[in-house]
């Protein structure tokens, strides 16, 4: 289908029509935290580069979610499965990096075990991407071949060119959604040309860069280099910001919470490899030291995940750098590993 377009000032109206059929989520700022919230009376676009504080995956793979309830009473043991809510959602304003990340973790949640919670939400959600007009100094999507204006994992892609949104449909779901929106004009070729120019311009201006040449073999070679890891992990405080707010991290823990009278529920909740308790076993902790945990995080993204699914689990959204309380910078670490003089 040919790209459509809509004038910038018509967007709130468009979103409003979607609201009749869907739960429409749009980014909203509150106290410096940008969150996807249900669309209110009107949509107010956020200025400049403003990606959500938490990646959009947190709307699919929830911080915590009950999986089943159980009760143990005199009548016997009962168990009731809890399925995710059946709500058709439209998420508007997803940045290409975050959309790409969904594509990456789809691999995992669709793998040998199909994760119904995640997949059902994916199925029920229309993702409308919003191309970046600008970026900040933490962004490095270009290094990971992520376009700042398009992603394969959106249903619709919006890009603002001179006061007009160019709308590109990317999936059948997208097309279906687009068709439901009445009379949108088709974008002109020169507008599409301008979009390409915009893409090139942003790509050029992103200066943060990671060298991923032969990264897997270099990572492997560097694995045993404990002094390297000790050094680079020195200032890490071991909190969970970079993992919890990473668009591709997905580790979780399973907890049974039993309350009074034998009633309870099983929960799935986020867990982070930055924590000492992560995968700790009764007598042994596989990652006893901070440097081992930092190494796990980096290796998981750049070695193990590619090994399993053929794709690096990083999209260069820059959250881990931007939000880190001590400015720990993964790009510096990767580049350090990629340095030709790094002995490994």
């Amino acid at each position: 289908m040919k790209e459509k377009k809509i004038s910038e000032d018509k967007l709130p109206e468009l979103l409003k029509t979607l609201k009749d059929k869907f739960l429409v989520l749009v980014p909203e700022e509150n106290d410096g935290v940008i969150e996807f919230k249900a669309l209110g009376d009107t949509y107010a676009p956020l200025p400049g580069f403003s990606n959500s504080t938490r990646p959009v995956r947190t709307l699919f793979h929830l911080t915590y979610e009950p999986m089943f309830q159980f009760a143990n009473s005199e009548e016997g043991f009962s168990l009731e499965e809890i399925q995710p809510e059946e709500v058709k959602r439209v998420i508007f304003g997803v940045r290409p990096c975050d959309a790409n990340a969904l594509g990456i973790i789809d691999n995992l949640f669709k793998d040998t075990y199909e994760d119904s919670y995640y997949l059902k939400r994916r199925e029920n959600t229309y993702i409308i991407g919003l191309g970046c007009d600008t970026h900040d100094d933490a962004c490095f999507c270009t290094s990971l071949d992520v376009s700042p204006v398009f992603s394969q994992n959106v249903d619709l892609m919006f890009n603002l060119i001179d006061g007009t949104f160019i709308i590109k449909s990317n999936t059948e779901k997208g097309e279906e959604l687009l068709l439901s929106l009445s009379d949108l004009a088709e974008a002109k070729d020169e507008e599409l040309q301008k979009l390409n120019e915009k893409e090139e311009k942003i790509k050029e201006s992103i200066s943060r860069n990671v060298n991923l040449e032969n990264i897997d073999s270099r990572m492997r070679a560097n694995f045993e280099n404990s002094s390297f890891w000790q050094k680079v992990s020195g200032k890490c405080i071991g909190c969970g910001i970079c993992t919890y707010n990473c668009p591709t991290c997905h580790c979780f823990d399973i907890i049974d919470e039993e309350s009074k009278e034998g009633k309870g529920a099983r929960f799935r909740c986020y867990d982070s490899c930055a924590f000492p308790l992560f995968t700790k076993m009764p007598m042994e902790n596989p990652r006893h030291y901070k440097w081992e945990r930092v190494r796990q995080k980096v290796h998981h993204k750049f070695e193990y995940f590619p090994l399993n699914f053929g794709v690096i689990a990083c999209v260069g959204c820059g959250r881990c750098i931007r939000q880190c309380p001590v400015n720990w910078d993964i790009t510096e670490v990767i580049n350090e590993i990629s340095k030709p003089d790094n002995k490994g």
Partner: protein
Amino acid sequence: MEEKLKKEVAALFDEKKIDYFVGYAKGSLMHKTTPLITKDKEEALKTVINPFIYNNLACYLRELPGRVGVVVKGCDSRSVVSLLQDNQIFRENLTIIGIPCSGLIDLEKVVSGIQVERHEITSIERQGDKVAVKAGGKEKTFEAEDLLFDKCLNCVLPVPKEADIMIGDKDSPPVNKEKSYHIIKKLKEEESAERWNFWKDQFKKCIRCYACRNVCPACSCTRCFVEVNRPQWVSPVQKWQDNLVFQMIRTIHVAGRCVDCGECERACPASIPLRSLQREMGDNVKELFGFESGMDKDEKPLIASYKDTDPNEFMR
């Protein structure tokens, strides 16, 4: 100042007085700084001093073996003293390099002040009571107290007390108690139920990343009580109830240790005003027991000591 610090650091390495240097380096993001922990003299010379050295480096001291030279601001020096009181670090292993502090500039306040994003701001310069900010074509001068961190506006100790080397002269940030306390004051005036609802909403945002705890020098346990699972005081499931209980108990645990460095609030990715909790607790500790954290390394920790004259009126 920076040059003097570099000279001192070089001398410490040359005289083999320290094994590690802990200071600040230029960060990888515009205007930000990052902790610098190194055994290498050349690397240590990358150290910087500017109004953005917000990290409280005391939180690294427990981990480092050997003799450590550490750069501290006034608030950080109180953390160091507090750790000394708690037997977590030992004075003979430390060379404390003190920096008189005239307040730290809160980049978020700069951004919202000039309405330009951080990475587009070309320069931020402190000139006495004023701060000049340049961004693209814009240029604006602010009153320093409008851009400093809230915590700095009611600083108890701008000049480190427990220090071996002092870099620079006396210095202190402007005082504006009103501004420093605006959240605390607002909450204090509310009914307790409203206060509870406020915190309830705040902790619905909490993702339990534990950045507040990990960045806090007062949280010196290797195993936190939340990691205890028999009994499970706090469930790992990030429900607001448990998030809130976690912070409540943390507040009790750091009472008498918290030096109002404000790192918990700065680190919080959910922008929960944690500092106002800790600061108010700290003020209460001072009022109740006349105890101010991290002022005298020979003082007994708050909870390990008592006085016959401690408040008793609240008891039935």
